[in-house]
């Protein structure tokens, strides 16, 4: 506002040229303390056997007696932590330690009750569920932006810009980013330093590096055989290139496909989403189907496919084993926010969202995904033939299997 001599922060005149000053970096650099390994950020192998319910009950704090109506369903504290950790693929140990550090809700039966137990005081994000969702999405954003080498500075809540220490890891970047959203330099320095959040983590779970699974993503990792998510002989529109696998903070790990009968509406399609690979269905939710390709029953390990916006009617059930090309369910608008019938597919490996425009792109029966640097924009390429994702139903973005 100072740079543009703006007095009213709510109004801009058409034709105004906004000057966006170059950031002034603070002299002090960011912390170099590695707080957690990468595998403690994701809901990965080291969290597969962690019992959220038992841990919360053992602490006897306010969280253990908490309940909240979430979209018409009453969830208790453990349900909320579990739902968010699974959906966002963020480690429940990390969410619990952050919740304790920020508000004491895990151990204190009579904490200072606040609408913002994660410390993010936004009236639109009041209540435990929205606070934990905000935390998980924020942690993911820091983690995956660091993974993509897209960060060089933290912009703290008070506007200070500090250079990031280049020796931290992605898990630590996630926590540094989380606290950058909440305070100025001094509290940030404390929270991310040796006397800050990491102490709470130690008190709860001991040394986080004792849980390290490294490498979380092996250098030689390759995607198993996968097909386009619809039946052979059918044509669907490729409507979304690489974009957020779950909410806006995760890797751009998802692609969208829309059946030909949707006409831009939210009517449930008569067509079927089909399994992209062989695997066990471990979980279904509102619009979601989770398929575990290593068949160990844990979506925290190995390759996992997430199908989203699958209608409840006709949807596969947890515990069923699907071979490639078998029916998953009908595409719809169910789950999340969607403005037209389609299916959204994403992949995880060891709990980490795998980007569709990164070193391990989707290979769907020979169609390989790529991105342009703009979310939702991208291509599927087979040999010399490429199809660009379009926000519409055009012959150009029709892809035949």
């Amino acid at each position, binding site marked *: 506002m100072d*740079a543009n001599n703006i007095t009213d922060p709510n109004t*801009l005149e*058409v*034709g*105004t*040229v*906004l*000057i*966006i*000053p*170059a950031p002034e970096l603070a002299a002090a650099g960011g912390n*170099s*303390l*590695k707080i957690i*390994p990468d595998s403690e950020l994701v809901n990965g192998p080291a969290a597969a056997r962690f019992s959220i319910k038992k841990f919360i009950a053992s602490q006897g704090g306010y969280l253990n007696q908490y309940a909240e109506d979430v979209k018409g369903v009453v969830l208790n504290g453990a349900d909320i932590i579990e739902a968010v950790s699974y*959906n966002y693929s963020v480690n429940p140990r990390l969410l619990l330690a952050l919740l304790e550090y920020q508000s004491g809700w895990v151990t204190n039966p009579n904490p200072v009750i606040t609408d913002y137990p994660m410390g993010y005081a936004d009236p639109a994000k009041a209540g435990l569920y929205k606070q934990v969702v905000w935390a998980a999405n924020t942690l993911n954003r820091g983690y995956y932006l660091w993974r993509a*080498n*897209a*960060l*060089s*500075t933290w912009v703290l809540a008070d506007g200070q810009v500090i*250079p*990031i220490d*280049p*020796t*931290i*890891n992605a898990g630590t970047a996630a926590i540094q980013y989380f606290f950058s959203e909440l305070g100025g330099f001094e509290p940030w320095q404390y929270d991310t330093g*040796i*006397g800050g959040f*990491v*102490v709470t983590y*130690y*008190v709860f779970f001991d*040394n986080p*590096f*004792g849980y390290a699974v490294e490498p979380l993503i092996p250098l030689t990792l390759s995607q198993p055989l996968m097909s386009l998510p619809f039946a052979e002989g059918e044509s669907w529109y490729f*409507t*979304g290139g690489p974009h957020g696998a*779950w*909410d806006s903070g995760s890797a751009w790990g998802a692609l*969208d496909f*829309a059946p030909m009968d949707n006409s*831009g509406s939210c009517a449930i399609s008569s067509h079927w989403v089909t399994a992209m690979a062989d695997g066990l269905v471990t979980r279904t939710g509102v619009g*979601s189907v989770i398929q575990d390709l290593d068949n160990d029953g844990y979506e925290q390990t190995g390759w996992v496919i997430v199908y*989203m*916006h699958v209608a409840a009617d006709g949807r596969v059930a947890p515990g069923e084993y699907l071979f490639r090309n078998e029916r998953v369910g009908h595409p719809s608008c169910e*789950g*999340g*926010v*969607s*403005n*037209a019938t*389609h299916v*959204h597919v994403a992949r995880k490996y060891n709990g980490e969202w795998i980007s569709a425009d990164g070193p391990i792109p989707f290979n769907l029966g020979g169609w390989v995904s790529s991105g342009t640097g703009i*979310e*939702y924009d991208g291509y599927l390429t087979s040999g010399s033939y490429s199809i660009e994702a*379009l*926000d*519409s*139903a055009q012959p150009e973005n029709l892809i035949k299997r």
Partner: protein
Amino acid sequence: MSFTRNISAILLASFLFSCAPAVETPVTFPTYDPFVSTGGTPPGHSSTNGITSTPAASETIIPSATSTRPPTPTRVPLNISPLIGIQNQITSNSPTPDAARVLPTPRQQADEQSFSPATRLEVSHSSTISACKH
């Protein structure tokens, strides 16, 4: 008067009797040999017939677990801060820093953006067919 004397005699006799030495018992001391009884002969190591038996063969020396008698001990809340100990652990457990990566260069110059009726101040996806947010 005689009644008082009798009482005094009884009390005196009781006092003297209580001070009399008891039957002498051997003094026992703890030993660091787990197979040596504190009250007598070490059974596995010096049997009377010169045959050394294995400890497991002697029922008298196998300790049996005993259950904790009530009331069950409970943890007392710590009244000292574990912070220093934990910080020492954090320091000693802190792994080797990653190799410094080359970070993107922060923007060095001011940027300009013209505000027109179509300008949006947030990055958004104006989808008509499949925008989704979960």
